[in-house]
């Protein structure tokens, strides 16, 4: 079997993606010694190498680990579907639902996303930013979080405790995309819950609790070993863990996701679950969350991904 580990891409998360790809490729080489595992970057040559839906493919299956735009929205996945090549992970249609944080927030169970609005830059320009911001800040309240509507690794994300911080935060966030979300900031325990979906039975792995030493789980905190403390298992009561696990499985189902997903959420002091976002090509680097959850579940990255690869190939038959 020839497996393409697709990583890199052309957005701000390229470096993270390359590291994810390397990690998964190494793990798969251990568990699938007979398979030929090739790390490839996304470019025209790669697309050509996939051949056509009716012709011969140079790979048997693709593991897309491109993070952010193109990789986690519908773009790449639609292309793979048109080419008729099996791939690990969610379909183009469900990627379109999950990638846009605004769309996903509207679809998750029980209105569990904190209150938000999402606007394009042109709206601010044409209507006048001050009046919009005034309405938003009064309506949503402070503190609020400004973040690009799509994309990951907390790039362009800022917590605004007072009104003056909002406009500069928007300038920052619009650097990463044309639509930006302003969302009520919820405080509580930050968790990432991985769902592995093999044989039509999605299960939640142990939630990973995230405590950034700087207080904010930003890019530097994510990718500098030691800058964030992780607790797996998390320090919440078992009934909360159960609810959180059920919730992540429900998100996976509501959005029609496949194979693997990671739901990021906050549990506040009342025990209420707040949805932040869901990732369908979650980071697999040395400091990433999903590998920690996999290990805590007594599994290993190679084992999980070889099951997912086999499932993707079987699904296509």
């Amino acid at each position, binding site marked *: 079997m020839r497996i393409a580990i697709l990583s890199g891409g052309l957005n*701000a998360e*390229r470096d993270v993606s390359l590291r994810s790809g390397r990690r998964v490729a190494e793990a798969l080489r251990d568990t699938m010694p007979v398979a030929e595992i090739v790390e490839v*970057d996304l470019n025209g040559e790669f697309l050509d190498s996939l051949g056509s839906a009716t012709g011969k493919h140079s790979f048997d299956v693709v593991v897309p680990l491109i993070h952010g735009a193109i990789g986690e929205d519908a773009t790449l996945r639609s292309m793979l579907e048109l080419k008729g090549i099996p791939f690990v992970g969610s379909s183009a249609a469900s990627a379109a639902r999950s990638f846009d944080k605004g769309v996903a927030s509207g679809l998750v169970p029980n209105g569990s996303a904190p209150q938000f609005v999402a606007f394009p830059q042109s709206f601010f320009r044409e209507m006048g930013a001050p009046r919009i*911001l005034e309405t938003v800040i009064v309506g949503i309240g402070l503190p609020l979080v400004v973040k690009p509507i799509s994309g990951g690794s907390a790039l*362009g994300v800022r917590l605004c405790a007072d009104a003056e911080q909002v*406009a*500069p935060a928007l*300038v920052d966030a619009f650097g990463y995309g044309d639509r930006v979300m302003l969302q009520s900031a919820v405080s509580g325990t930050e968790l990432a819950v991985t769902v592995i979906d093999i044989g039509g039975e999605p299960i939640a792995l142990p939630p990973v609790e995230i405590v950034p030493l700087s207080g904010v789980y930003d*890019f530097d905190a994510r990718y500098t070993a030691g800058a964030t403390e992780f607790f797996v298992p998390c320090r919440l009561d078992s009934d909360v863990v159960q609810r959180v696990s059920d919730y992540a499985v429900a998100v996976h189902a509501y959005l029609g996701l496949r194979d693997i997903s990671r739901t990021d959420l906050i549990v506040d002091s009342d025990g209420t679950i707040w949805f932040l976002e869901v990732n369908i090509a979650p980071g697999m680097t040395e400091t990433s969350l999903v590998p920690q959850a996999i290990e805590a579940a007594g599994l290993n990255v190679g084992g999980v991904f070889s099951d997912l690869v086999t499932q993707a190939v079987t699904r296509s038959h």
Partner: protein
Amino acid sequence: MDPWVDSYAQRAQGLTASAIRALFAVASRPEVVSLAGGMPFVSALDSDRFAEIAARVVREQGAVALQYGSGQGDQTLREQILEISGLVGVRSHPDDVVVTAGSQMGLDLVTKIFCDPGDTVLVESPSYVGALGVFRSYQCNVVHVAMDSEGLDPQALREALVHARASDSPVKLIYTIPSFHNPAGLTQSFQRRQEILAIAQEFNVPILEDDPYGLLGFEGEPPQAIRSLDDQGVIYLGSFSKIIASGLRVGWVIAPHGVREKLVLAAEAATLCPSNFSQLTVSRYLAEQPWQQQIKVFQELYRERRDSLLQSMQALMPAGTTWTVPKGGFYSWVTLPHQLNATTMLPRAISSLVAYVPGTGFYADGQGAHNLRLSYCYPDPSRIEEGVRRLAGVIEAELDLVNTFGVKTSGETRGNSQPQLNPNSDLI
């Protein structure tokens, strides 16, 4: 996860991931015009001839080339180095030359033997990102000293030295790049060099003179090194990276006798000896090839690229953007309209397939938000023009955005109030 997190030394704490560095991963894609990295255009060398030289080094001098060598470096090469340094007026003895793995290693060794944690190093404002990385790793107190159009400002230097004298932290080094400065693109006049040297002598602080671009001027004779004026108070760093090839990793330090002795011991402790293979290859290249002619080829190539950059900026940059006009070297330093922040703007530039290095990378104290460095050494002139066109579009879009939100100054950068770049070869 990393099980050794709690074991690292304090000096490793500055070695953190950063969003800026991650963005540069994209800059290596062919779609992106990178005006970021200072990679010499080594393709201008005759690679067949180089291959022949390397092959003959192994065939004819293999027993030496593939063996350990002198910690101070090959004797013949050290003599040849003096011939090259002579072009910038440096007169010395082969005994006072230490060969290093690029001048970056020289920078590291000099800092290692001079600076205890907390000692002060005076640097230009802005300064070379790779030097800041070294000073940070030795836990130095880095103080930036203002520059004017002729580089390091003597008045500001004097004030900084007076100020430091009143503090607990002794000034151990004055680090300067007098010719075709990285990143500022400025060059000190001869008179300026004399003034700076006089002040250093008065305060009895050694000058660490970093001169990798000295022979890459576009007009007239190469500027004479500060070291040409004083052989006791100046430690001189030179490099083959820009006049032959950076991949060879051969540079040198010319130091006063006592410093040189310490340097050799420190170098031996660090690496035992520089690569004999690289040294012999360089030595043979210098002996057999018209290297001065090759430097002229590089000068012409970079001058043409500099012209392309300057002409494109003149034609395309939005009003309110200014830049320095380098007379040699690789870089121009751009100042954006005051309401823009080059770090915040970088992801937009990357999405628009053009890369630069944000100005904050060249400061240890968070300055430089409104600046960026453009390097013209690697892309060909038409790509440079395309890159400037994209960048001009990015600046216009960012101005539009900032005006939309009425943001006056966008000095703060995301997440970290004092972002520091750990240098890598994409940024040098």
